[in-house]
């Protein structure tokens, strides 16, 4: 926008009003912190709930039940589901949670048959411990990294929640936020340990479909298979299932978009005001620069660059704070046994910085235009 040889002039003008610059940059930082946090929240929700057309996993749930506490189906449904054309694999799953409502600290146990272990551990990275340990002990658990860090448990220790106590055999890392926030245990163990349900009862079936194009047809076929059973089912793609389970949460997160926009509007007003004041203080100085031969357009670009520099300084501070907080606090929103990760990914951080720079440009536009249109001689007469 301006040649680098003019940058010292821009930066020195910001340093000139140190207190005003620092306070404005801090204001920008707070707003950009809020913006990036909201953005991370929305990206977390989008990643967990938006269908991409490449989905191959269905979740079979008890019809008209919306919580793991009330969804109960016999595990004998598994072989009947497996026979439906298009089904590649079926994993019966018992879900036990310590809190069914929305919470930042929900512990979710997922009971899966050991013989199906491969279908769930595919894609896991073992951070510590071993999968062999998990196979050996009946009360062993594979604990997601986020859950382990949040609860402060390590391999070899026990994790207790919802009346279930497990031995941490391994800590695993996964791209899927659901896996990052759960403890996988042996299905029969969880069926015995859980206070609700019992032997032969599961909460849901996770069904792998051989072709994403057949996802809906297979879902309809599964629901049709059990329509006349005592426990009819509702089958949805996994992300649609998460979106339904977290419906209230998704709406609230959607509303936070307005908070992010309000933060941007506040920054715009704050920086705009700071630049207007700064430009008003320098009417004579801009007239001098024009006298030296600085074109009006260059004066305007210098002023806009001040806004950009100010917003970038605050933006870097705010974005770094948001990224650090979200990284180290490992927020995870859980509701009805499904988890939404809140993590500031690089795209959110880059977007935050780009938005900060854009706000800087917008904030500088009006004062830049005003300063560039002033007549030189009139400016000298006015001050």
């Amino acid at each position: 926008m301006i040649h680098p040889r003019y940058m010292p002039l821009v930066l020195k003008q910001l340093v000139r009003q140190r207190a005003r610059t620092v306070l404005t940059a801090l204001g920008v930082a707070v707003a950009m912190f809020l913006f990036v946090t909201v953005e991370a929240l929305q990206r977390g929700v989008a990643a967990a709930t938006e269908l991409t057309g490449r989905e191959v996993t269905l979740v079979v749930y008890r019809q008209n039940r919306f919580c793991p506490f009330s969804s109960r189906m016999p595990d004998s449904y598994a072989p009947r589901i497996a026979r439906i054309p298009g089904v590649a694999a079926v994993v019966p799953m018992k879900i036990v949670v310590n809190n069914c409502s929305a919470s930042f600290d929900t512990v979710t146990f997922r009971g899966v048959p050991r013989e199906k272990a491969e279908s769930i551990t595919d894609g896991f990275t073992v951070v510590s411990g071993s999968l062999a340990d998990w196979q050996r002990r009946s009360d062993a658990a594979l604990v997601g990294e986020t859950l382990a860090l949040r609860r402060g448990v390590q391999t070899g220790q026990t994790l207790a929640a919802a009346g279930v106590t497990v031995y941490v055999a391994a800590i695993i890392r996964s791209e899927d936020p659901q896996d990052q926030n759960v403890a996988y245990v042996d299905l029969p163990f969880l069926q015995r340990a859980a206070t609700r349900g019992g032997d032969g009862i599961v909460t849901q079936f996770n069904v792998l479909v051989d072709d994403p194009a057949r996802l809906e047809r297979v879902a309809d076929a599964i629901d049709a298979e059990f329509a006349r059973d005592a426990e009819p089912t509702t089958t949805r793609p996994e992300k649609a299932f998460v979106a339904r389970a977290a419906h209230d949460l998704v709406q609230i997160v959607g509303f936070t978009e307005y908070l992010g926009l309000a933060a941007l509007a506040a920054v715009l007003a704050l920086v705009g005001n700071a630049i207007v004041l700064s430009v008003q203080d320098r009417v004579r100085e801009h007239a001098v620069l024009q006298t030296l031969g600085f074109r009006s357009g260059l004066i305007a670009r210098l002023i806009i660059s001040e806004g950009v520099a100010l917003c970038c300084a605050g933006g870097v501070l705010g974005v770094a704070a948001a990224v650090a907080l979200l990284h180290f606090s490992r927020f995870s929103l859980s509701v009805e046994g499904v988890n939404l990760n809140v993590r500031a990914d690089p795209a959110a951080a880059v977007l935050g910085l780009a938005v900060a720079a854009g706000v800087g440009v917008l904030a500088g536009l009006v004062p830049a235009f005003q300063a560039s249109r002033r007549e030189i001689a009139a400016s000298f007469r006015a001050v």
Partner: protein
Amino acid sequence: MSEPLIQCRSLTRTYTRGTETITPLERLDLDVMPGEFLALMGPSGSGKTTLLNLIAGIDRPTSGTLHIGGIDVGGLSRSRLADWRSRAVGYIFQLYNLVPVLTAYENVELPLLLHRMSGADRHSRVAAALDLVGITDRADHYPRQLSGGQEQRVAIARAIVADPAILVADEPTGDLDKASAAAIMELLGRLSREAGKTLIMVSHDPACAAHAGRILHLDKGRLVEHAAATVGAAGVTT
């Protein structure tokens, strides 16, 4: 005989302030030769600064023509006029008007930022200008760390660094003590004599004006009197 560098014909400048129309300069004719040192004198409101601003290209005539170096300055667009100023005119203000956040060196460097040249060229020209005005040892000082006389020397260095043909000075000694004023006038005289700059200066002080080769008196926007001056080693006679 060479052509005039500056030619004003029926030069008029009118301002409107509310419902009132003010004419600080009215149908002025003036020729200024290359290398001439011209002083403009007159009471406040006589149109001296208005004429200076028109010649410097920071104001535009309401009517009449102003040709400088063969260019119709009044007819240039805003951008071309800015480019022309950066090449052709150096302005010396009464209150110096240095940028307070920049050092003396950086202030002098400002006009050169507009010209295509290497950093080394820029440095050597700034160093030469600071040397010429005798302020090299204050290059790293900020304006607030300089005396009035030193600030005006920096302002003169800034005015000459791009090697313009014309220097305009609006009461360059108006804010200085006698000793500093004398030193500044000596410097301006030297720039006119030795560097061949065409120098147009507004002054209320007859002693300063007497350094000029020609003195013009203005009153109510009109030229009222011409006086020739000869600069001597010890003083001035008119």
